[in-house]
Structure formats: structure tokens, C-alpha cells
């Protein structure tokens, strides 16, 4: 292969490094009104009165919008396919505020300083209500967070707002309760995960203007421009045909930009005033007023036979969606559907639970999307079971995990909000990943631990993981390829490059198929007027779904070129030979440049354009084994990550360097969730960790060595054998590190993040028990 499975630099990398204007805020109109939001100081309150008179007197204040300015159209910001599996429980502005940082009203003014002064002059009277600050107390609490009659579900998702339940679900294969009774060895344990923040470098940013056609044009740092356009139109009741959403370069998303954030208010300001406007979230707003990962509690019961066969898995999940139910059902279901099939030999499996509303910052989509939470719980519990069985963790997994050609009944039962799709694992190199990681981390000579010095124990731990590749029969991508004079191409895709490099790998797929150099493919992505439909960058779908669409469109373009060449040579298509640059038939020869110039300037004049789409009929999972080596300081409880070995099966790596970047970026974010990123609220519901000093993501100094390898694997249904790679990297670190800590000092930490404080406390307790 010429272009695929080759490392080339990101096509946008150099320009971005040179500081070319490319990001949303670079492209705002210079005279934009600044839009800022007055945010709630209370976790739950009814707004009785907003006195904006003083603020309106301030020179330079253009407009103040409150809930009274909007029709009560409930919607969801989630940014998913339509109809959404998330409850419609949000208004552009509401008379209730449901978390600290929720929107009260918004000011548009000529400068940021005037905007801020105006915010201070607005006097709001609140009736403070009893907040729910603990998700375990939420269901059937006296306080009801969504009592408004307009809140509704789009189809049954178990939405019971009077009970503070945003969604619920239950499924069972076999009879888990009976099988637990029959099992020789049983483990029962609860696990807790925290509300991790995305910490993308570019904060949420959007701007708007009315163009010369009297249409609303937005630039937005979004992962879902097509959904943004639809949701804006439905909610503001402004015709879809008069909205254009452009996604320029985006400085990271990780799921945090799947939903809508500033788009509604900026559009409303521009539509009311006719003037351009813009909004850039402060870092505090990103923390408090966008959304986080869903915190969850898992109550897991595992049953196994004496000879080490896992018989049954029972899993109850309580998830905290915060003030609004974005992705409430789907993240919670993925905590089962992208974790439980790993152990497909069980006789029975049950997965059930609820998603509760609380008065915390809402939760939403985040790389890993439930799978990382579920992986921490299940892979920790598996190690507990293995310990009780007296077995080796690798041997147990090898015996019980899913392998090439096998399936799990869960694939057919559980989808994302709906039923799933049955499939066999046509490409599954998990066994290779397990064995290769074992060698690379030097498990044999390290497990369970070695004493490096008086107070340092070096240990290893591991976990296996799977993800998906898009949502079958829902996620749709399409691509248009246009041949230009002189023989280069435009590739137009709805797929959304948010820094992960999708424009580059889609160009590589097109170049491979067309036989040309990647530099001949000029990619334009995500402009709702110019590029074809794509659901957006989420659910690990771009390489597989959009990649397949590009492959099909390129194949069609190639056929068109051959047909035109046959016409020009006056021969039959079957004798044309075309290598991507030169077209040959018998003794005749012509380059693609000559053919295209002929087509556009001289003879048989016509524009060649091909468009194809792709919707997945299955979601082939990428797999990985994650092995960690840690040094645990028994004096301080501090954990140093010595090496993190990832062996990944993502099918063909279209661009090995970008694929490695995806895996390693995921690993570091996973390490952050595992041991650094503590989320603290004070007793009145205020997020304490709302800045980058208090909220600690790992720095370069925390990451010592990452060892990343890819298994040789080929997924027949993927473009050139590729599966997804965007999320799989994040899943294993919490469980692998928790297991390594257990292997080092024998304490099992069941809540994230695993801080030195927790480790030392458990070590002390354990010493007390021994005495």
C-alpha cells in the first residue's frame, strides 16, 4: 500500500504551528458583540425576578436576554442523532437554575469589560430550593429537579422525572441470581468513579453573524456541526435552510464539544440585534458550566467455578447525570455493552440500573463514554476474583475472554439507547495483545512486586478492554470527491476533525484508492452548506464510518476517470490501465493532468464529482491489553507510573503515528482519571476544583515511558482493514493501576482517583487488622 499504513505528518499541523488563523475565535468578526452569561450562585433555585434596569443603562450594553425572552421549547444539548436518546429537559434560559454555574441570563455588550460590569449590575431575586448534592440520595428525594411539564423523552428511555430519574434500563441473559448461588467462588464489591473533566486546550467557543443572504452563519468549536444546525433550528424556530454552521480547526474535544454550549445564546443575540457576536468560555465556565464525565457507582457480583471459569456477572449501576440528562441513558448502557462482552463465556449476565438527576454540573459525552467506568469496576473485580481463586490474572483472562470468531449475546441485546446488532468478532487479536503485553512489561519477573529499595515497591497490573466503531444503522458518514483541472482533488467530508487528525487519514484513504499522492487531496471538512452529511466526531466512528464513505467515493471517482479516459482514447473501459497518475490503453498514454485539462477546457467537457455514503451494519470493536508498571512509595503512598504498555488491535493503522497519538493521549487521560484528577465539591454544591491549579491533570513530568504496539489485524468491513482507535486507549489505566497497587501492597482501592491519601489510609487499616 502506497498511502495507507504510512506515517505522514498531519496535513494541518504545519499551518497551525505557524499560527495561521484557523480556530473559531480567530475567525470571529472583529466588531463582534461580546456575549457573557450571568451564572447561578445556587445549586437549585427559582428565579423570582431579574432587575436588568441598571445594567441596561450602561453605555455599550446592547441586549440582555432572560428566560422571558424565549418560548418554552424544551430540548437537549446532547448533540446526538435524531430523535435523541436523551430527555428534552433543557430550555435556552429557564426560570429555574439547577446547578452552580447554570445560566441565569446573558448580556451582549461592545466590550468584555462592559459585559462584566453589566453582569455585576444585574440584580436577581432567587427562591433557594433544597438541592440534591449526593447522587445516592437523588431517587425519590423530596426535591424534584425537573418538575416542569415540558420535559419529555423522545422514545422510552425509562425517564421518570418525578423520581429524579433521567433514564433506566434492565437486561438479563440467563439467571444470574441462581448462578451466583451455584458458584464456588463469589465476589461482591461496589466501585465509584468521579466526574472527570475533559480539559481540552481550546475552551468552548462560538461566534455568529448574519450574512448578505440574510442567513445566520456560525463558526463553532463543535464535534457535531450538523446536529448543531438541527437543534438550533428546532429550538429557536428559525428555518434550517437559513442556518450555516462551520467547524474550523478545533483545539480538542474529547466528547466535551459533542453538545451545544454557547451556540443558542450567540445565535439569539445575533438574530435579535442583527450584529455579529461571540462567546468564549472562561476556564471556570468550562469546568462548571459545560459538562463532565458521569460519576457512577457499580455494584458488581461475580461468580466462578473452582477451576477458574467465570460463570456469571451481575452489575447494577447508579449514574449521576447532574442537572441535565445529556447522554444519560447511552453512557450508562455503554458501561455495560462495551465491557461485559469481554467475558463472553458466562452462563448468565445481568445489567441494570438508573441514571439520577442531581444539582451538580451536568455530565455528558466523554472519551470512553461509560466504558472506562465499567472497565475500572469489572477489571478490578476480576482481579479480586482471581486473587480469591489463587490464579494468575493473565491465565484467568486467557481462559475466559472473547476471542477471534466468537460472539456475545450482549451485542444483539444492547445498543446505544436502543437494541443492538448481533455480530461475530471477525478481527480480534486480544489474545496476541494479552501475551505481547505480558512480555513487554516483564510480568514474569515483576509480578506481584519486587522491592526496589527500602520504601519503594515496583509492581505490575493489567486490564483488557474493548470499544466499538460507530453505532450501527445510526451513524452515517458521506464524502464528495471533485476532480479539478490539473488533476488534483477536493475531498469534502462532513466528518469533524477536532485535532485527532481525521482530515489527514481520510486524505490517505482517498489517495490510496485513487492511486495519487496524499498531497493531491485537498480536504475540506464540516461546513453544513458545502460538505455532505455526517453525524460528527463521536462514538469512535470517523475512521470506520467516514473512512468507508471516502473509500467508496474514491472508488467511484476512479471508475469515472477510467470511463472518461476510454472515451478520450475511443477504446473499451476494460483495457484501460490506470496507476493514479498515468492512464494507458494499448500504445496510447495520457496523464491525469492532461485528462482533467481536456475535460474542463477542451473536449467532452464535464465536471467529475462522486458522492458516496456509508452507514455501519455492525460496530467491530478494537481491543487492547494495558499493562502498567508502577513504583509505590510505602512512606508517602505516592504512585509513579514507570511504564505503560499498550498493545492494541485497531485493525490496520491508516496513519501509525496518528494512531499511536490517539492511544497514548487516551492512556495519559486515563492515568489522570486513575490517580490525579480529583473532583471536589464543597458542602454548598460549589465545585472547588474549577481551575487548572486545583484540578490536576498529569503533566509531562508524570509520564515517564509509554510503550505502544499495534497487533497485526485486518477488519474486512473497515476501510483498508481499519477499525476505530479514538477511545480504546483511555479504558484500561484505572483498573490496571488499581490492580498494580493491590499487587504492590495488598490494598484494594475502589474509588477514583486513587490518591496517596487513600492508599496510605487503607495500608494503615490493613496493618491494624493484621495486629
Amino acid at each position: 500500500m502506497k498511502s495507507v499504513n504510512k506515517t505522514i505528518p498531519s496535513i494541518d499541523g504545519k499551518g497551525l504551528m505557524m499560527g495561521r488563523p484557523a480556530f473559531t475565535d480567530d475567525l470571529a468578526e472583529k466588531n463582534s458583540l461580546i456575549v457573557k452569561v450571568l451564572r447561578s450562585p445556587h445549586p437549585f433555585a427559582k428565579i423570582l425576578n431579574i432587575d436588568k434596569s441598571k445594567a441596561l443603562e450602561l453605555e455599550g450594553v446592547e441586549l440582555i436576554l432572560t428566560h422571558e425572552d424565549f418560548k418554552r421549547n424544551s430540548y437537549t444539548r446532547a448533540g446526538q442523532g435524531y430523535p435523541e436518546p436523551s430527555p428534552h429537559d433543557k430550555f435556552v434560559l429557564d426560570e429555574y437554575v439547577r446547578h452552580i454555574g447554570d445560566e441565569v441570563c446573558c448580556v451582549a455588550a461592545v466590550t468584555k469589560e462592559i459585559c462584566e460590569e453589566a453582569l455585576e449590575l444585574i440584580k436577581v431575586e432567587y427562591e433557594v430550593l433544597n438541592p440534591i448534592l449526593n447522587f445516592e440520595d437523588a431517587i425519590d428525594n423530596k426535591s424534584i429537579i425537573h418538575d416542569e411539564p415540558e420535559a419529555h423523552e423522545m422514545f422510552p428511555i425509562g425517564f421518570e422525572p418525578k423520581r429524579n430519574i433521567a433514564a433506566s434500563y434492565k437486561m438479563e441473559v440467563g439467571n444470574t441470581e441462581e448462578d451466583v448461588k451455584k458458584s464456588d467462588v463469589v465476589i461482591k464489591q461496589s466501585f465509584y468513579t468521579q466526574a472527570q473533566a475533559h480539559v481540552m486546550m481550546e475552551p468552548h467557543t462560538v461566534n455568529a453573524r448574519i450574512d448578505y443572504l440574510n442567513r445566520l452563519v456560525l463558526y463553532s468549536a463543535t464535534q457535531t456541526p450538523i446536529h448543531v444546525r438541527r437543534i438550533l433550528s428546532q429550538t429557536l424556530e428559525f428555518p434550517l435552510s437559513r442556518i450555516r454552521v462551520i467547524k474550523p480547526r478545533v483545539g480538542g474535544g474529547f466528547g466535551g464539544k459533542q453538545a451545544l454550549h454557547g451556540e443558542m445564546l450567540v445565535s439569539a443575540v445575533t438574530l435579535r440585534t442583527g450584529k455579529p457576536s461571540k462567546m468564549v468560555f472562561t476556564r471556570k465556565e468550562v469546568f462548571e458550566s459545560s459538562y463532565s464525565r458521569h460519576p457512577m457507582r457499580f455494584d458488581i457480583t461475580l461468580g466462578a467455578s473452582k477451576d477458574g471459569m467465570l460463570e456469571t456477572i451481575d452489575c447494577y449501576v447508579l449514574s449521576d447525570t447532574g442537572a441535565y440528562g445529556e447522554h444519560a441513558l447511552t453512557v450508562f448502557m455503554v458501561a455495560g455493552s462495551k465491557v461485559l462482552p469481554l467475558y463472553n463465556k458466562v452462563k448468565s449476565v445481568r445489567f441494570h440500573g438508573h441514571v439520577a438527576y442531581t444539582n451538580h454540573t451536568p455530565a455528558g459525552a466523554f472519551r470512553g463514554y461509560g466504558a472506562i467506568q465499567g472497565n475500572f469496576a469489572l477489571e478490578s473485580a476480576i482481579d479480586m476474583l482471581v486473587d480469591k481463586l489463587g490464579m494468575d490474572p493473565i491465565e484467568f483472562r486467557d481462559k475466559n475472554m472473547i476471542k477471534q470468531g466468537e460472539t456475545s449475546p450482549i451485542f444483539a441485546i444492547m445498543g446505544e439507547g436502543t437494541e443492538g446488532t448481533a455480530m461475530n468478532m471477525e478481527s480480534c487479536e486480544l489474545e496476541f495483545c494479552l501475551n505481547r503485553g505480558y512480555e513487554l512489561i516483564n510480568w514474569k519477573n515483576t509480578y506481584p512486586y519486587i522491592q526496589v529499595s527500602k520504601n519503594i515497591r515496583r509492581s505490575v497490573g493489567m486490564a483488557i478492554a474493548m470499544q466499538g466503531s460507530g453505532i450501527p444503522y445510526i451513524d452515517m458518514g458521506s464524502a464528495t470527491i471533485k476532480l479539478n483541472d490539473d488533476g488534483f482533488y477536493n475531498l469534502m467530508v462532513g466528518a469533524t476533525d477536532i485535532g485527532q487528525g481525521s482530515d489527514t487519514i481520510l486524505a490517505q484513504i482517498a489517495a490510496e484508492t485513487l492511486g495519487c499522492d496524499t498531497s493531491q487531496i485537498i480536504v475540506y471538512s464540516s461546513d453544513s452548506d458545502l460538505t455532505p452529511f455526517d453525524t460528527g466526531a463521536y462514538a469512535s466512528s470517523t475512521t470506520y464510518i467516514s473512512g468507508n464513505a471516502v473509500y467508496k467515493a474514491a472508488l467511484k471517482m476512479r471508475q469515472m476517470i477510467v470511463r472518461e479516459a476510454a472515451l478520450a482514447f475511443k477504446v473499451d473501459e476494460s483495457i484501460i490501465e490506470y496507476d493514479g497518475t498515468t492512464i494507458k490503453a494499448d500504445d496510447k498514454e495520457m496523464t491525469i493532468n492532461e485528462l482533467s485539462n481536456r475535460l474542463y477546457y477542451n473536449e467532452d467537457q464535464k465536471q467529475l464529482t462522486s458522492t458516496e455514503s456509508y452507514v455501519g451494519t455492525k460496530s467491530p470493536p478494537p481491543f487492547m491489553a494495558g499493562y502498567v508498571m508502577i513504583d509505590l512509595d510505602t512512606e508517602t503512598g505516592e504512585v509513579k507510573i514507570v511504564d505503560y504498555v499498550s498493545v492494541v488491535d485497531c485493525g490496520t493503522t491508516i496513519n501509525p503515528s496518528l494512531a499511536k497519538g490517539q492511544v497514548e493521549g487516551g492512556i495519559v487521560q486515563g492515568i489522570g482519571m486513575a490517580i490525579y484528577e480529583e473532583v471536589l465539591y464543597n458542602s454548598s454544591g460549589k465545585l472547588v476544583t474549577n481551575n487548572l491549579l486545583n484540578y490536576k491533570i498529569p503533566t509531562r513530568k508524570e509520564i515517564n515511558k509509554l510503550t505502544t504496539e499495534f497487533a497485526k489485524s485486518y477488519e474486512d468491513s473497515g476501510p483498508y482493514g481499519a477499525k476505530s482507535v479514538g477511545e480504546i486507549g483511555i479504558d484500561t489505566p484505572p483498573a490496571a493501576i488499581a490492580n498494580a497497587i493491590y499487587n504492590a501492597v495488598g490494598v484494594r482501592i475502589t474509588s477514583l482517583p486513587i490518591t496517596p491519601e487513600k492508599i496510605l489510609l487503607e495500608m494503615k487499616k490493613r496493618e491494624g487488622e493484621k495486629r
Partner: protein
Amino acid sequence: MVKHIIPNSLSEALDYMSKDEYKIVSGGTDLMVQKRAWAETPPKFDQNTIYIFNLMDLKYIKKENNKIIIGANYPVEKIKDFKSTPILLKKAIEIMASPALRNLATIAGNIGNASPAGDTLPILYVHDALVKIVSKNNSRIVPINEVILSVRKTCINKDEMIKEIIIPILEFTKTSFVKVGGRKADAISKTSFTGAVNVKDGIVKDIRIAFGAVNVTVVRKKEIENKYKGLSVLELQSRINEILNDYEPFIKPITDQRSNKDYRKQVSLNLLKEFINNL
């Protein structure tokens, strides 16, 4: 009306300060954070401020008579690179914040800010550093433990400014500085331990111990140190429990966003124990 003054010389600065009360800013690494407003807007200084960052007459480092003398404006990153800087101070600076901040931060700022978590402070205590404080008509030299009175409280008067820090160069055979923070860069310490000994022929001639972030000021107890001077290393190690008991009452950390008091206390004592056991 708040005044912002950028003086051209130390005497001009002191002249202003003799007339009005000013907040002194050199690198601003503490004050810019304490006074921060919205993102991308200037910090909200609500009192008179004097900026000394360009005063070259405070920007020096020199070695004189077995002491190093550091001007108030001299950034810590350069102090770290100065060849005569004591090894403990170099260790403490290496793990401070991040390179960008270290190019602005000063030791005088660490003293003036008087946070119990100030990274260089335990080192100054262990070295019995002296602080030269000047005003328009006066000058005095005060030991570090008398300069810092409590959390954010110092003995420096309204018209006074730190001119230089005088650090005696001492002979140690083993030193240890351990900072326990949430991560390795850009983190304020949960607790820190500083230890230094001078052992000759198996006899502990000198031992100095300091703890950061576990009380209102840095904890250094000379009376405890004196009790154990003159012992052999083995004798010292055999009395480890007694040493831990001696220090225990002075380690009174708090629970806050960074950590909790039980962890801080336990870890501080663990680090002391480790230091003594590894002599």
C-alpha cells in the same frame, strides 16, 4: 485612587514607601494569582502597588565569606544555576512550579508571601538564613524564623522592603528535600521535609530538620536537634521513636483541598523516619 509605581532605583522605591503604603510586586507569581479576575483581564489590584522587577540594584547574587547573598529581585531559576548555591536550595528550586514561573519567582517573594507551603522557606530555616530589611532611613538584619510570624504575617513594616537574603554555606554530609504534591510540576506542596546532617567519624556533629506546610510557619526545632547532636549514627537510629515523639506535637497540619491532616502528619513523620534510618 490606587497608585501604581514603577521606581527607577531602590532609594526611589523606599522614598515612595516612606510616604504611602504599597504592595510590592517583583515576579508577581503569588500576587497575580491572588488578585486574579476574569480570564484574560488584568488582575484586580485594590491597593497601591510598587513594581520592583526592573530594579537592577536588587538583582544580584554573590558569594562572600562563606555566605551567599541574594538580592531580592534575583529569580530562583538563576539562583539554582549559581555554582555556590547550597545543594538543598537547588533541590527545592528544581521542583518549584514550572520553568516559566521559576524565571520570575524570587526568594524574597516566598518570604514576603509567608505561606507555610513556600517551597524555599524550609531551606532558609535549615541554613539559619538572615534577611536584610531596609527602609528609607534604616536597615536591619533579622533571622528568617523571626521574619515570618504566621500564615501571611511577617515582621516587615509598611515602609520596609527585603533587600537581600544571606545564606550561610554549611557543611553537610547528607541532605534530603522531599516535596509531596499532587503532581510533579505546578503543584503546591501537601507537605515537605528537609533534613541535613554533618557526620564525622560516625558521630552526628550537626543535624537540622524542617517541615513545610504542616503548621502556621515552617517547623524547625533547635532544642530537639541539640538533644541528638554528638550521638553516633547508630545511637541516633536506635532512638527513632523518641525523635518521632519529639516532633509529633509540632506537626499540626490542616485538612484542605490539597490533602487531609491525617495524611500530612503520617507522611511527614514517615519522611523523617526514612531520613534517619537511611543515614
